[in-house]
């Protein structure tokens, strides 16, 4: 399926959201992306609010990428992976920085995927790739809608493969998703994208 996807080097960023059942896929993806993968990646994964440490470390074990929890207003750098910190929403700001905030919970979550996706869509427009993985609620669906509205590329994890498919399904129900891919295919997609940038 990935062979058929036509890709260009117009993209500037990737956002990935996930909740229950997304940790293993996330580790797989992060361990497969080469260090030189040029785009910044913004991760918003639902997490316990009082556990401030350990998540970055767990995601980093098998990855060659720099994975960080940004400080508020930290500058966005090429190739860095930004993980939304515990108990903060993470947004992309115009002017190439990340901002954090403590606004209301959305879909019972903080960080909420909708906020990260929506703000990234606003900044990167059609140059954004949004990927939504397994999860048990509907967070991320509106975010995917915004990405689509700005003509970015939308990908959900294969509904059958998702450990808990409520989240990708919720997105599928309100957006015409571009691709529904298995984790292996998402990885193949990102590797193909990387190749285009390395040419």
């Amino acid at each position, binding site marked *: 399926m990935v062979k058929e996807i036509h890709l260009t080097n117009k993209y500037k960023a990737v956002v990935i959201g996930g909740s229950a059942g997304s940790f293993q896929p996330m580790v797989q993806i992060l361990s497969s992306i080469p260090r030189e993968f040029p785009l910044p990646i913004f991760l918003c994964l639902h997490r316990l609010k*009082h556990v*401030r440490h350990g998540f970055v470390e767990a995601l980093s074990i098998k990855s060659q990428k720099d994975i960080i*929890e*940004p*400080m*508020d*207003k*930290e500058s966005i750098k090429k190739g860095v992976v930004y993980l939304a*910190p515990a*108990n*903060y929403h993470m*947004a*992309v*700001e*115009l*002017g190439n*920085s990340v*901002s*954090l*905030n*403590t*606004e*209301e*919970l959305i879909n019972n979550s903080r960080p909420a995927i909708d*906020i990260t996706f*929506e*703000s990234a869509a*606003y900044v990167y427009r059609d140059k954004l790739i949004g990927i939504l993985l397994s999860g048990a609620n509907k967070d991320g669906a*509106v975010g995917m*809608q*915004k990405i689509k*509205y700005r003509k970015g590329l939308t990908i959900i994890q294969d509904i059958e493969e998702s450990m808990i498919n409520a989240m990708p399904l919720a997105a599928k129900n*309100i957006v015409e998703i571009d691709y529904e891919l298995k984790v292996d295919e998402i990885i193949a997609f990102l590797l193909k994208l990387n190749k285009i940038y390395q040419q």
Partner: protein
Amino acid sequence: MSYTMGEIEITELRKLTTFIQEKFDYNFKDYAMSSFRRRIKRMLDLYKLQTVDELIHILNTKEGFFEEFVSELTVNVTEMFRDPTFWRVLREHIIPNIMLNHNKISIWHAGCSSGEEIVSMSIVLDEMGILDKAKIVATDIDRSIIAKAKEARYPLKHMEVNRKNYLRYQGKYSLEKYYTEVGSEAVINKALLENVSYRKHDLVQGSVFSKFDLVLCRNVMIYFNQTLQNQVLHRLHESLFKYGYLVIGSKESLIWCDIAHKFIVVNNEEKIYKKIKD
């Protein structure tokens, strides 16, 4: 779902902030735009408005609406003992350090919101046996939220989070000691807040009004851009006695501010700084 696509463009936000600056002399142009935009969107939905122009029209014509606007704009989500580990460091290191050389302590909650942080502070001081030695000032830009902070009544359903935080803080008693249940609310015991004075104050345009041993400004400056953060830090710096402490949110940083060198990091994890230069 069509309203979700009623996206607000940056030019409209600029028009709004310029209008507010001219008419009400409040500066919102250096607020962090992603959040500001979302707050404005939320307000359009709330008042069932289609465009930012309609909002400007109401601001321009409806008497008293601006205060309501400020109130809706400000983010007022907080918890008692947010980041319990911070409160432990405060109890075990920071406050004892201040009390080494003083027999009283002055504290400013800059951006106090609905007052949960003030309650937490008062409980910490009470359990340390020094509440009567404290002078606490609480300020916020939003007049109606100050009124709420003063009332100190919180929905019982919020108290579960607060109790959990208090447990993680490892307080002496249980949080229930400090409030009475009245209907669906937890009413904080008045005696606890006797030494607190409340006032409306805008961190962005307000003046420096006093000096303190300890200033808490946690998760307030995250709503500003870097220019404004820098400007506000100058005010906070001026509002501290030399060797006084400044606390910001756990994911905030001072490193890009031009007067960062006038502070030293006391605790990087909890973002506690000490002013070392005037």
